[in-house]
């Protein structure tokens, strides 16, 4: 069915950006635009969910291009809707958090910050709702360009270096992606996402499809798979809300979203199986999961540790897609929102700690749990969820991933099952020391004398959003169908694999 809703949803942040610039001298009005746009976008995105659960597909062709069978437009299917809901719902919370964070720290260039943020979110939701690869590419590049000012927000030489690294990885990635898209168009005559793959690609020679696959894999470097991950830890120099939303959700999830799209909707699972590409992808994912976890253990900077944790967790999603079974795919799809909520909690906590105490290193955080009980409680909940321990939603997605790996059956399946379990174990190894340090270590001398006015918790605008995300992490465990997420995942699976 044809609806204008996707277009309106995309336009919300663009309009907000246009309004933010003229109101740069009135901070309250400026932030009001962000909040209003985020709420409007979330409601618009959410309003499509019931239709999709009923089995409708919302399609909107904006305009036909000069290329035959390529149009710029939106098609909202169940999988895209999951990502769109994740990104837009978290934007609401992060907008609130941003206000508290940026104002408490008296950050400079806030107008630029909110302006770029709007475009980054527009890109992420645009990627989610795109009907074909060309549209996806447009939004993908918008994400890359608009997040650059956010990454280098500090404007220190170090931040600029991080920003350059960011572009040095992601811009060539864009070139690879465009290459892959054009090859797809050239081979298949279309770039539309089709469940179970674009049929014409099956007729192409295996070599070409393999090249295509690698072009896409490099193109979706935003998924931070190893060894092309090092831009992500560097980008952690950005303000915490940026790291939270963009580098745990919008940017990197756009990358994994792209990979799942390629596996399920472009190359198709049959072809992945036939050419053995699934094994390459799963190998890369498994490697990343384990190695990134080890990297995480060695980091003392909290945000950098979280960044490596992100790299590891993203590969869960890639692995889920690569294993090509019903359960693993469902695990991958569920892990996108679930990991999003948990990881954003962790990042928001890291930001809250920075705001309240100015600390970024884990070794300095001894006893911080007594000072900021609410923040650290939220942190603990999310950390437990990351490790896949109930009662947090991480358990559900990991369970599905394990079932999926089991269902593969062959020795490979067992290996990947072991990888998932080991990686979860490593998650415990790098998260629990933080919790232990925070709650049970004696605070060092300086923590009580820090700052002029002794802040206990961070300001409410900072603490409330992270509490909400932590609570949602719990709710998703009890009721995974919050925001229709579970139904949508089921729907997407039945689209991909057939049957109910």
């Amino acid at each position, binding site marked *: 069915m044809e609806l204008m809703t996707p277009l309106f949803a995309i336009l919300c942040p663009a309009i907000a950006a246009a309004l933010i610039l003229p109101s740069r001298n009135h901070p309250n009005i400026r932030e009001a635009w962000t909040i209003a746009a985020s709420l409007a976008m979330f409601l618009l995105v959410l309003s499509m969910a019931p239709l999709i659960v009923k089995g409708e597909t919302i399609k909107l062709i904006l*305009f*036909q*291009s*000069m*290329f*035959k069978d390529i149009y*710029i437009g939106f098609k909202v299917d169940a999988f895209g809707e999951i990502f769109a809901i994740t990104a837009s719902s978290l934007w609401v919370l992060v907008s609130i958090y941003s206000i508290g964070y940026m104002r408490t720290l008296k950050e400079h260039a806030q107008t630029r910050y909110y302006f770029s943020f709007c475009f980054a979110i527009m890109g992420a939701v645009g990627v989610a709702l795109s009907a074909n690869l060309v549209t996806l*590419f*447009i939004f993908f*590049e*918008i994400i890359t*360009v608009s997040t650059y*000012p956010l990454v*280098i927000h500090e*404007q*220190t030489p170090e931040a*600029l270096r991080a*920003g350059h690294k960011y*572009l040095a990885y992601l*811009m*060539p990635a864009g*070139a*690879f992606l*465009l*290459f892959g898209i*054009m*090859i797809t*168009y*050239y081979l298949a005559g279309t770039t539309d996402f089709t469940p179970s793959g674009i049929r014409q690609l099956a007729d192409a020679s295996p070599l070409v499809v393999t090249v295509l696959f690698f072009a896409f894999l490099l193109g979706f470097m935003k998924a931070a798979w190893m060894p092309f991950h090092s831009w992500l830890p560097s980008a952690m120099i950005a303000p915490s809300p940026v790291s939270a939303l963009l580098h745990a959700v919008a940017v990197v999830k756009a990358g994994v979203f792209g990979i799942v799209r390629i596996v399920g909707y472009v190359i198709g699972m049959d072809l992945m199986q036939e050419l053995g590409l699934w094994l390459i992808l799963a190998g890369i994912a498994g490697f990343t999961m384990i190695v990134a976890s080890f990297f995480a253990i060695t980091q003392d900077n909290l945000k950098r540790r979280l960044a490596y944790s992100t790299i590891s967790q993203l590969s869960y999603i890639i692995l889920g897609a690569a294993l090509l079974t019903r359960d693993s795919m469902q695990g991958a799809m569920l892990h996108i929102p679930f990991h999003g909520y948990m990881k954003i909690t962790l990042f928001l906590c890291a930001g809250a700690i920075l705001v309240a105490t100015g600390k970024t290193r884990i070794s300095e955080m001894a006893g911080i749990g007594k000072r900021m009980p609410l923040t650290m409680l939220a942190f603990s909940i999310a950390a437990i969820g990351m490790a896949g321990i109930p009662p947090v939603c991480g358990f559900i997605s990991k369970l599905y991933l394990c079932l999926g790996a089991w269902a593969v059956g062959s020795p490979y399946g067992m290996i990947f099952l072991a990888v998932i379990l080991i990686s979860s174990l490593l998650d415990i190894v790098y998260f629990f020391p933080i919790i232990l340090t925070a709650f049970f270590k004696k605070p060092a001398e300086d923590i009580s004398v820090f700052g002029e006015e002794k802040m206990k918790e961070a300001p409410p605008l900072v603490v409330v959003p992270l509490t909400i995300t932590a609570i949602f992490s719990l709710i998703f465990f009890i009721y995974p169908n919050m925001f229709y997420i579970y139904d949508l995942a089921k729907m997407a699976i039945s689209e991909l694999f057939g049957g109910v």
Partner: protein
Amino acid sequence: MDLVEHFPVLIVGLSMFLAYTMLLAGYLNRRLPFFMSLAMNSFFLILSLFILNHVLATGPIRYWQGGWRPPWGIEYVVDAMNAYLLVIVISMVILGLIYSRGNVRHEIEERKHVTFYVLVQLMAAGMYGITVTGDLFNMFIWLEIASLTAYALIAVAGGRALRSAYNYVIMGSIGACLYIFGVCWIYSVTGTLNFADMRLLLPLVYDNRAVQMGFAMIVVGVMIKAYIFPLHLWQPDVYTYAPSTISSMMASVHVKVMFYMLLRMFYSVFTLDFIRHYIGLDLLICWVAAIAILAGSIWAIKQRNLKRMLAYSSVSQMGYILLGLGLSPLSPWGLVGVAAHILNHAIGKGCLFMCAGAISQQEGLRDIRDFEGLGKKMPHVCAAFTIAALSMIGIPLTAGFASKLFLIVASLDAAQYPFVAVLLLSGLLNLVYFWRVIDQMYFVKHKGTENAAEVRETGKSLPLSMVAPILILASLCIIMGIIWLTNIPMPLINHILSNLRMGVTL
């Protein structure tokens, strides 16, 4: 005969006549020439839009000057390609004129203003002439008018511009000589100068060495004028030291008109059959273009002077257009790329040169390393610069992305895969040198001037006449970026293709 069919000759003739009238009017009042030129060119723009409309609706205009039949008289032929180009050229001339209003006061002495506008109008007349003519020798005349005035306009700035203008005189004259020699060689065989006539007669003598020699001379001569790498040596100095208005006009349309001559040679004087089978030039041109694209970008990376960097960037961008031309025998998308990039590069590079001029006028800065904090001092100009730079890099939703897309599809369609890599790599190289500027403008922390409000007081603000064209061009970069993605230009493109390729459409 429709009234519209008189418009091409009206535009050219009135332009010439206007130039001399302006000189006389300049004695009465120094300000008069500018307004006359602006008014008349705006009138021409309306006429050219009528021409474009007429050409798209009813087909090419063939105008016989003085009623003499073609092989004897001079014929003006306007088909979709040059009607389209004419609109672009006139629009850019108008925007350049508006920009020059604030700019010449700063860069050129008062007493030269009248002659400056007269020369600009003459150069415009030359460009219009090349665009509409259908006759090889007549084209030479217009070429010389457009070139001689350009030499003078560059030298007007004085100082180092004199030497660069001198270089250009030498190189440009060689180019023009090669062109006219080439025409003579071909004329000696065919006995005609009319495009259409030649196109009929030449296939019989494609084997003739004189014809092949003539063709080679014309191509090399035109390539010097269009600074195709490695014949670009005169260009960086010229673009660096010429008045900004002139750099902007030359980079945006003067060179496109020169390139258009090459296009006409390929499609309207000779045929693809000749290009491909008798001299095998098409792939050679592609490779020359590929080298131009990469070499231009690499040299641009090495530059510290903004205008010089833009000059090398133009060398690279002309490579894009040439690549499109080289691929066009193999794929219609090549011509689409040419048509799209002629416009996209005109608006993008025109905007960038205008920004460079504005920056050097207001802040006196030319070296990229001194641009720290410029984003706060000149928000509009820097924003426009950023948009145009993104267009050059080829970020989606800007005009440059569309050209890149068309050329990539052309390479794939023609099964010339290396050029896909060249195009993608070039986008990244463009990123390197343009991003450096954007970084300096907005993100590199500047030392002394923290307070933006304080800075704004000290800086002289630019007149609206300079900011307006910059902003118009920057917004055009985005508008065209979206329009090229739709199928709105489809009729125009199909007409261009069918006019030049005899029947093949998308």
